[in-house]
């Protein structure tokens, strides 16, 4: 499968020309850093050439869509599976008006850790284009092969949402939803569940001590879209800014529970964390519970009605 950049450009240009959208959000090459692609907005059909679609488009876009459409802007979004579900999260949370987004689905073969590729194989960035060969990305025309096993971003190694769902259109290229690197999405959760309690506590405590509480995980998260976060409140002051094991517990567990049943598993928190905190494991534990306790088959797919977002008078369980 090729990365079909010209087709992406053509689609974006058509949306702008037909005035279906005011702007298109995608990624652009960073002129200063060869390995980096950053979120980029294009307003004119003549500028769609600034967009790029290759194995280095790491940043998720959903949280940006939230802010950009607040003023009523109609936005076309180049959306991988993770981006599309993030946008749908925000739609179901009434943060984005459905009619303000046009989702251009891009089936995603996984994204590479650009800095690592730059360190180990800088010549890869001479490529004119890229092809996807399942276990490798292959540069055109240089033929340089990058093994995914080595270079996939953590969030993409664990990805279970490669196929862009619920999009307005999907760019008809090959590429399935199956991620060969993620055969069992709950493997790490099960491993942790099997640990005796003291060891499990030590595991998390080690990470809590390392967490800087820079709020990057919260800020990138499409499910963290409250107008004012309880963790920022002063009255009452739920979370002290003092950093200790106790307050880190409060921070991470509050966040995990607030996004339980709402997390779209985009992995942005994991990508943003500078110290490698396994936020994915925390969120997947919540997902596994959603499956086990509520029978939700795909707990990461936003729905019109969700078990934890509903109130039923005949709820069998007493609130205690």
């Amino acid at each position, binding site marked *: 499968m090729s990365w079909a950049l010209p087709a992406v450009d053509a689609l974006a240009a058509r949306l702008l020309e037909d005035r279906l959208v005011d702007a298109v959000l995608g990624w652009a090459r960073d002129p200063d850093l060869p390995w980096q692609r*950053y*979120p980029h907005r294009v307003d004119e059909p003549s500028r769609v050439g600034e967009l790029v679609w290759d194995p280095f488009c790491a940043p998720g876009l959903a949280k940006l869509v939230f802010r950009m459409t607040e003023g009523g802007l109609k936005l076309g979004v180049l959306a991988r599976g993770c981006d599309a579900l993030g946008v749908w999260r925000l739609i179901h949370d009434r943060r984005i008006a459905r009619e303000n987004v046009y989702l251009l689905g891009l089936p995603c073969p996984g994204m590479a850790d650009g800095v690592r590729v730059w360190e180990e194989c800088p010549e890869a960035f001479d490529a004119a284009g890229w092809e996807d060969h399942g276990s490798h990305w292959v540069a055109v025309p240089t033929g340089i092969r990058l093994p995914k096993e080595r270079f996939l971003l953590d969030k993409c190694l664990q990805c279970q949402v490669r196929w862009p769902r619920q999009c307005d259109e999907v760019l008809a290229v090959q590429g399935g939803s199956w991620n060969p690197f993620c055969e069992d999405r709950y493997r790490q959760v099960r491993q942790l569940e099997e640990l005796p309690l003291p060891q499990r506590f030590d595991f998390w405590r080690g990470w809590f001590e390392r967490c800087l509480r820079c709020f*990057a995980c919260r800020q990138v998260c499409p499910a963290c879209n409250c107008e004012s976060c309880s963790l920022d409140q002063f009255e009452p002051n739920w979370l*002290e*800014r*003092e950093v200790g094991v106790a307050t880190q517990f409060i921070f991470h567990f509050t966040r995990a529970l607030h996004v339980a049943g709402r997390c779209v598993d985009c992995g942005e928190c994991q990508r943003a964390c*500078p110290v*490698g905190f396994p936020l994915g494991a925390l969120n997947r534990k919540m997902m596994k519970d959603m499956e086990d306790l509520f029978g939700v088959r795909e707990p990461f797919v936003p729905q019109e009605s969700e078990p934890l977002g509903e109130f039923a008078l005949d709820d069998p369980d007493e609130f205690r």
Partner: protein
Amino acid sequence: MKLVRGSDMLRWLRRCGEGRRWVVPAKEDRHWLFAERDGPVVFPPDYRNATVGPKGWLLPRSEPILYYRWTGGRVSVTPAQGWRPQVIYGVRPCDLKAIALLDSIMASEPWPETQYLTRRAHTVLVGMACTAASSCCFCTSMGVHPAESYAADLMIYPLQGEEYGVAAFSEVGREWLAQLEGEEADAAFSPAVPALSLPMPTSLEDLPGWLERRFDDPGWQRLAWRCLSCGLCAYLCPTCYCYGISDVDRGGAGRRVRWWDACTLPDFSRMAGGHDPRPTTTERVRQRIMHKLAYHPARQGEILCTGCGRCIEYCPMGIHLPAALRLLGGDGR
């Protein structure tokens, strides 16, 4: 400079630093951090610099300032004593320069920050010159040199194989070095070349003025629209020192603590009553960059960036200094 074999060097350091806490670069999972260990270590070849530098061992993420206790309507207040003698080992020149900058800020009149200065006075800094560049570092663009000692008491220069050069730059450093048996020599050390060279629009001396003239430039908005308002850049930055203060009350007793804050966080400058002079990411990102490259130089004569490259490598939305300089220089993208 004294020449010494690695194993002898570690033995000597361990002996000199006895009774002190050792803070050394440690690889945990895939990330390098400065962590407490029982002594100095030999660096594996893949160590270039730590994701989280040594800043937190001098200016902790959070620390008590005082303890208070109410009894019978009266309050008693005890200042916190938060320091232990320590050695911070393996600090790179960009971080050493950053510590020198923090020193000058915290010592500034009319109110020197004694808590920091006391901890600092009980810290021995053992620097390590760079033999390999990080993927995003750009120290020389900021006038920082990858073999310079700056705030270090001792500098280590990795030479050939097992051989190291050690030099002293302070009273304590000289005391320690006097106890090292090694051949006195002038070894040539060729440091690493930083990975990036910034597209500087002007000389470093003229940079503050160049930026101040661009205070209202639309480039700030083109850079900052994608900022998500986290504090990652500031927390990883070796020279960001802004902090907040709040009380942790436990019913009748408690402590007043200070904690790292960041001018990129949304509530940083919001006042009681709601007024916020920097309400959007545009003003906040501009504040962070201007403070480093324009305001601080105008105040204390030095640029508050040492080119460690952490903000470039870790910003999840790709906001960084090179992009700022380019956008303000008139590149429309």
